């Protein structure tokens, strides 16, 4: 096999896993963009999404086309409950306090999942097929190819919504200036709820994709930390930044893992994070003024 073909395959694999990172990063961005809350429980929401899919598909025996929307909706529902029950009462509090609430929420979700489904790692029912995908001569893992397409479509939809849909514009307006948004008649609490519902639903969807690749376990939420790097590089409040950041980090991890060795993957990723923060502290595409925690 030629080195060029191998390089192409590695690059495609990197783009695919980068897309998964981008999708998870999107959950951080959606919530931060509207509410200025960094939701550290995104990883655990993702895990919950994987388990909900497992419950619907393996437990109730529903087909994937029904189980996936239900898992995403379940994630959204949990997002709505969390926003209404935990986050809204904290409005106006110190951002650190809200941040800590989301850390606690993550632990609670892990505990609940361990109580309901136990602690064994599990595999999700296969729903993506097994025929390998070839682009030209280059092999791409089927699941990674699907994840890439899903992430690309979802992100494109969000970019369009933020640009043209009234609700999207309301969200941007709320993010820019809450008081002004109120005075224009925008239902700011409604926007907050919407952001949490959509953000958590997205995380749950990413959890289904991730779980179908790597299986599910209560500890799979650590993936959220890798996605946090993506949003810091891409910009905490930029949807496009999540996409570009995800793809860049996916590519760099793939190249570093292949040509330097797997042990260099994280070193390279976090090295890149440091460099990115030194050059553009607010991320590649982020708004210049962001809160520091």
């Amino acid at each position, binding site marked *: 096999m030629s080195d060029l073909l191998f390089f192409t395959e590695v690059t495609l694999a990197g783009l695919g896993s980068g897309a998964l990172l981008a999708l998870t990063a999107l959950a951080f961005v959606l919530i931060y963009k509207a509410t200025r809350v960094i939701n550290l429980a995104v990883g655990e929401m993702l895990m919950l999404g994987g388990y909900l899919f497992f419950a619907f598909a393996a437990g109730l025996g529903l087909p994937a086309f029904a189980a996936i929307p239900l898992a995403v909706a379940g994630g959204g529902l949990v997002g709505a409950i969390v926003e209404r029950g935990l986050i809204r009462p904290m409005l106006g509090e110190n951002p650190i306090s809200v941040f800590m609430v989301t850390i606690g929420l993550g632990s609670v979700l892990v505990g609940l999942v361990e109580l309901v489904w136990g602690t064994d790692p599990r595999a999700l029912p296969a729903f993506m097929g097994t025929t390998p995908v070839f682009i030209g001569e280059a092999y791409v893992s089927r699941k990674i190819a699907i994840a890439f397409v899903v992430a690309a479509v979802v992100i494109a939809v969000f970019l369009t919504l933020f640009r043209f849909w009234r609700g999207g514009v309301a969200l941007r307006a709320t993010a820019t200036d809450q008081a002004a948004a109120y005075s224009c008649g925008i239902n700011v609490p409604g926007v907050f709820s919407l952001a949490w519902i959509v953000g958590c639903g997205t995380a749950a969807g990413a959890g289904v994709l991730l779980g179908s690749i790597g299986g599910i376990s209560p500890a799979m939420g650590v993936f959220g930390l890798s996605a946090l790097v993506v949003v810091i590089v891409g910009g905490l409040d930029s949807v496009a930044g999540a996409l570009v950041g995800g793809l860049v980090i996916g590519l760099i991890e793939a190249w570093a893992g292949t040509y330097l060795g*797997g042990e260099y993957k994280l070193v390279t990723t976090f090295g890149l994070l440091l460099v990115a923060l030194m050059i553009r502290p607010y991320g590649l595409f982020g708004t210049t003024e962001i809160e520091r925690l």
Partner: protein
Amino acid sequence: MFGITRRTLIALSASAAIATSLPAAAADDIVIGGSIPLTGVFAFAGIGIEAGMQDYIKILNEAGGIQGRKVRLAYEDTGYKVDASVAVFNKLTSQDEIHLYYGDSTGFAKTINGELDRLGSIMMAGASFATELNDPKAFPHQFMAGPDYSEMTGILLEYIAKEKPGAKIVLVNSDTEFGRDPIAATKARAGELGLEVVEEIITPPTAVDVSTEVLKLRRARPDYTIFHGYVLAPLPEFMSQAKQLGLETKFMGTFWSMDSSIWAKVGEAADGFMGVMPYRYYYDEAGDAPMLDRIREMRPEYQSTPYMQGFLTAMLFTEAAKRTLEAGKELNGTNLKAALNSIENFDTGGIIGVPISIPGNSIPVGRIYRYDASAQKMQPASDWISVQE
């Protein structure tokens, strides 16, 4: 009056009721302490380990205990964090007189080793099979109820060398202390046996997607791929992608990735996965395994491989205590370890398929099993292999 209000009286009588309802703990109980992970990344193992230890202790106590003394397990959850394990150790050892202790990780075993040496009163075993711990000079009061990780891969290599002399091997290890443990020893042993390690793949601990690693595997085209440092993920994904690419390689693992109920949940893709197991499986109906019959009687549903590990560890703990007391010696780390090391050709009731001896810190025996997806069981693929030097 003594100033006792009605409320105080109710509180006092309630606490008295609670105190009397607790199981009686006699002063001469032999207490096994335990830092056991019941939550966190290693919880699946901790839950099985605790159940296995409790069951063996129950069997032993029903048969009269050790010289009439009952055995009891005192343990707390650690979440698989070294600092929590140390805190639990300090708490339990200050509450009870403890001479036997179960630790949950390599990190804890190394951290607490100095304290074990200083105290001199405790012998410890645990969930770690780290090669480093298999050194009676550096870890005089510890042992492991099975082969160390290098001995495990050594057993796999013995099998490979017999099945396919000169085979090409790829090592896949997680980038953790656990994962990296046997790499050097495996490479050295492979060389001695005339096997060729053609590629080493290291995966970050958080790795989920392994597409790039599978590409490396395809380039190397090995006959066997040995995983170490994982429980389940990302093994199934490796296997299903390799299958998609038409790779012929056989996949193998070590003890912590050998539980058959975990592979049963993976389904068809798990078929053919092989690995080394120091113990028999719950469903093994071998004629010389009365202890497995007993376990099935106590628990009609499948028990995991960590259960067997906990069960055997409790058996060895109490055997060492029994031998120490029978020799009229005091229960302390040195005497217990000497008694453990006196174990020779010991029958484990069939938990391990051959009689065992423990001259050092490990039991370097294991057997190769292969997962059969249609039967949803691990089936023996070799006889018991000993790598005792």
